[in-house]
Every structure is written in C-alpha cells, then in structure tokens.
C-alpha cells in the first residue's frame, strides 16, 4: 500500500469520524449527567434535515447549522420532558425519538420539497466549504509533516476542526470546572447534588441541551458539509455507532476521539476496499459495517476491561414514590 492510499484513508477517516464524534460527545454529556440517550440517531437525522432545508432556502450554511442545532435541541428537550420532568423510561423515550425523527424528516421533506423525502442539492454558500490551513500548501510536499498537516488534516470543513477542538474542551469542562464536577456528580448520585443545594433538573436539562447542540452540529455536518443535501435516513445508524463508541470509550472524552476515529476508519476502509482481501480470508463489506458493533459487544462482554456506566444512568431521579 502506498503513502497516497494511507493519506486518503486517514483523510476519509477524519471526515467520516466527525459526525460520530459530535454525536459521541453529545452522548457523553448526556450520559455523564445520568440521562441515557439512544436518541442520538434521531437527533442527527432531524438536524441533518433541518440544516439542509434551511440552508437550501436561505442559501446560508450557517443559518442551516443554526436550524439544525435548533431542531436537535427541541428533540433533546422532548427527551428531557419525558425523562427528567415526567421521569419516564429514558430508553423508551430514546426509541420514540428515533422513530419520530425518521418519520418526521420524510413527511416534512415531502411536504416542503416534493422530492420523495429529500432536499434539493445544496450549492455554493448553502454548503460548508473546505478550509485551507495556513502554510498547508507550502508544507504539502514535506515528508510526514506534509502528509499529516498538509494533506490529512488540511482541506476539511470548519466543522471538522471544531469537532476536534470539542474533545479537549469537553475534557476541560468535565474535569476542570464547577459545572463539570456537578455534571459528573448528578450522573453518579443525584441525591447528593440535590442536597448540596443544586437543582438536579436544571443540571440535567443543561446537559441534554449541550447534547442537543452537539448532535445538531453533527447532523448539520452530515447534510451540509459531508454531503450536499438531505436524503432519507441519511444518518444511517451513525447515532448508534456513536453510542457504541461511547461505551467503547467508557464515557471518557479522549477515548471517545480514539473510538470514533477507529470506527470512522473502519468505514473508510470499507469504502475503499468493499471486499478487504487479507490474503488468508476476504472480509466482505458487511463484516466491516458490523465491526463497530461486534467490537462494542466484545467490550461489553468484559474481555477488554469493564465498561462501567455512570451509576445513576438511566434512572429517573425520584424523591417521592
């Protein structure tokens, strides 16, 4: 395999990992605060749709991004009302949200654009352009640095760089700030937070709104940067892969980056070699597609250290039965 192939795979990995990264960090905020979020998929999808539609109508990718975030936050809030305010089952609420997004995007898209559940293609400013990093051209041909900085990292949408930035940011917020301390505490023992004079409800809502914003960006990236428009079911299970990555990462930000890069790379490899010939065996495309899930199951089986979720995760905070 030549260097150009490597470069292409890593470039592709970075692009494909970005929506996973946003969704995974979204899940991280939410689950660290004790709210399970299997609705990541739905939020990605609904954000992808609304950002593409608004970007198409206004011709501005940024307005599209705002709309995507807005839609995703609304879905987060629905989840919040169900699981925080009404103390419903978070898993069921997540399942419902995924269906709601799947149905809603198609029905609304059909009603707005009459194109069978897709938006018209986005052109020009309705789409996020690729950025050239400073000095990237100059460094393009320098060995190693050139390949990494000038080729792999260069020429991505601004959202990719923002996603990468979100990783240290998340880490810092979680472990270095008051908000982070409280957020982690509320996912472990909400009663402790409550009796310390902090509102569990407000804290958890804050967490899911952050999750909504992040998912919104991820969805917008899908339809306005990675692709040029929305198509039905375009999240294609990425929300679930993000969930798998979150477990794989054991709910930690830097590990999350590692996990989504791994899963992104699997996708990139599957795109490049639909049937990966390893000499001894040929791995079919479908195997690569399933690999993130298989790996996560392996993690869950405890073969590679135990993944312990936040202790209060999934349980509504109930004081009075």
């Amino acid at each position, binding site marked *: 395999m030549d260097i150009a192939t490597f470069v292409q795979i890593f470039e592709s990995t970075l692009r494909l990992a970005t929506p996973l990264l946003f969704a995974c960090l979204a899940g991280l905020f939410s689950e660290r605060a004790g709210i399970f979020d299997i609705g990541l998929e739905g939020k990605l999808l609904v954000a992808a749709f609304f950002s593409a539609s608004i970007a198409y109508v206004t011709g501005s990718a940024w307005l599209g991004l705002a709309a995507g975030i807005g839609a995703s936050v609304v879905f987060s809030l629905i989840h919040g009302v169900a699981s925080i305010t009404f103390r419903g089952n978070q898993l069921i609420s997540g399942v419902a949200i995924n269906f*709601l997004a*799947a*149905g809603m995007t198609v*029905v609304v898209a059909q*009603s707005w654009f009459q194109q069978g559940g897709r938006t018209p293609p986005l052109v020009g400013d309705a789409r996020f352009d690729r950025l050239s990093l400073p000095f990237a051209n100059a460094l393009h041909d320098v060995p190693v640095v050139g390949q990494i900085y000038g080729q792999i990292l260069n020429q991505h949408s601004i959202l990719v760089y923002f996603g990468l930035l979100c990783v240290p940011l998340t880490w810092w917020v979680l472990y270095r700030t008051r908000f982070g301390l409280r957020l982690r505490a509320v996912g472990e023992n909400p009663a402790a937070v409550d009796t310390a004079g902090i509102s569990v409800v407000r804290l958890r809502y804050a967490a899911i709104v952050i999750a909504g914003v992040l998912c919104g960006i991820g969805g917008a990236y899908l339809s306005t940067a990675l692709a040029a428009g929305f198509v039905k079911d375009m999240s294609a299970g990425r929300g679930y892969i993000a969930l798998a990555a979150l477990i794989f990462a054991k709910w930690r930000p830097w590990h999350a980056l590692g996990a989504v890069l791994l899963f992104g790379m699997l996708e990139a490899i599957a795109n490049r070699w639909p049937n990966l010939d390893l000499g001894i065996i040929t791995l079919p495309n479908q195997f690569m597609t399933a690999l993130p899930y298989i790996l996560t199951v392996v993690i869950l089986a405890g073969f590679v250290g135990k993944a312990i979720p936040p202790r209060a995760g999934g349980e509504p905070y109930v004081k009075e039965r």
Partner: protein
Amino acid sequence: MKTMPKWADVLLVPLISLVIAFALSALVILAIGEDPVRAMELMVTGSLGSTYGWGYTLYYTTNFLLTGLAVSIAFQAKLFNIGGEGQAMIGGLGVALVCLFIPWPNWWLAMIAAILASALFGAMWAAIPAWLQAKAGSHIVITTIMFNFIAASLMNYLLSHVLRPTTSMDPATARFDNVLRLPRLHDILGLVGIDFSRSGPANIMLFVALAFCVLAYVLLWRTRLGFEIRAFGQSEAAAHYAGISSFKIIMVAMLISGALAGTMAVNSVMGGPQRLVMNAVEGAGFIGIAVALMGRSHPIGIIAPALLFGFLFQGGSELAIETSIPRDMIVIIQALVIMFTGALDNMVRRPLELLFLALRRRA
C-alpha cells in the same frame, strides 16, 4: 396502597395516551396541508373496508402479535428487548433454510418445521445479549441494538452472496415451492362458507399467533416458570431471596422472547412473499415495543394494540397511494404512541392519580 384502581391503570392511561398521540398526528397531517378527517376515512376504508384490506391488516397484525408478545415476555422479567428486529431477521433465515433445502410433502409439516427453526434461530440471536446481561451485567438494550445491526449486516451478506440464486439480481432467496404456500384466510374461512379476498396475505399464522398469546398467558400466570419470571421482573432482590436464579430467568425469558420474535418470520416470509427478501421484518420488531407498552405487557392485552397497529400499517399504505401523505406518517404515529404510552405515561397518570385521590378523599 395504590392510588388508582387497576382498570384505570391498565385501560384508561393507555387510552388517553393514545388519544393524545392521535391528536398530535392529526396536527402533523394538518400542518403538511392535508385533511386529517379524510386521511382517517381513507385509512379505515383501506384497511377495514373490504376483505382485501382486512387480509393485509390481519397479516400485519399477526406480525405485531408475535413481536409484541416477544417484547412483553421479556418485559415481564424487566428486560427491555429491543432486539426483536434482529431476532426476527435471523428467524427468517431459519424459515428460508427449512423451506429451501428440505422437500416437504405438505404445508403443515413445513410450517411446523419453520416455526421450530425460526424460533430456534431467533432464540439463538437473543442468547448472546441475554448471556451478557446475566453474566457481565451489560445492558440488554445496548447489546440488542448492536445485535440488530449485526443481524442486518449478516442477512445482507447472506442474501446477496450466499442465498441469492445465481440467475437473480435481487438480494433475496428463490421462491419456495408452491406446496409450502400457507393457507390464507380465503382458504380457511372458505371452509365455513365466508367469502374472503384471496389477495390478502393473512394466513393460518394468525391463529398460531393467537394461540401463542394464550399459551404465553398460561405460562406467565399458571406455571412455576411464569411465577418466577414475574417475580424476578418485580424485584430481582426478592427473586434472589426466593432462590430464583437470575441467570436462568434472564436466559429463559430472553430465549422465549427471541423465539417468539423469530416465529414472526414464518408469517412474513412463508405467509407473505414466500421468499426471504431484505428487511423482511419491516420494523415489526420495534412496533412490538409499542404494542407491548400499550398492552401493559399482558399476552392478552396486546391483541388490541396489535390490531391497531395492523390497521395503521395497512391504512398507512393506502394513505400513501391515495394521497400525497407519505407512508412514513405511520412512523410518526408509531413514535408518538411509543412516546406517550411508554415514556410520557406519567404525564397522563399523575393528574389521573390526583383525580382519584381527590375522589377518594371526598368519598
């Protein structure tokens, strides 16, 4: 002491939730510029207005009875099996293998074999998540989601590379022998002189599914195993105190659940297109969740919601043909039903509880 009588909890709460879900769906239809009343009319005539419609409605109902039952049994043991989709897919594989590679002399032998095979395959697919829950404590929701995707990939591979006849471009198996055609309602009701459309795919599996409901009821409320499953579902600690093995209950409940989800494929493969196609499950595994939630996980209680979703499914297809409302509208309705009966039921229950409390205080 309970604040609310049982009938209110079992009937009133889901019913009110359902009404809210439908009201919101009507709003969505209005919002996209269509007439909800006409939509409802179309759905009713399309699904219940002719024996042709009934033939499809009951066909879907059969699917949902089986997946709903699967979710319910697991729910009774407090296990949230959202892997019905994957288990049914793999169940379909069992059906296809049995039907393609064994020359059956008649349909009923084949059907019994297919039920056994699909149940076995479905149970197998539930076994690993169950085992992981029982031994490693990994959340069954997460593992069953993973297994749904793994199943989809596996079926995708098998159908496009292994089971596809060389002459076909479809990722689907060959058609089964005509001998294996399950008797449809047209044939069955014809015996008692009722005229029924020959087109609708509803078939003998409807009665099998109903029989399974009764059997599940007996299992849960008349056998030791059922007693243990319910006890475990109510309180794991208490079950441990009573010497009920959590490992056994988790495994057995999930195996039964997976087996039931698997048998759904007998209907949708042998009873429907008579070959295994991609995505033969069509989301029935997930609809089973809504059905179980509405039926309060009671094997008899799920019959009405299964019929409701059968109606929605068939009505939705008609809607898509007759109006410009996409068939995805029923996905929205399904989402709202799951949301309101499953996650937001406190929204309905709490005011009701207050109401009943006030009524009782006054009395």
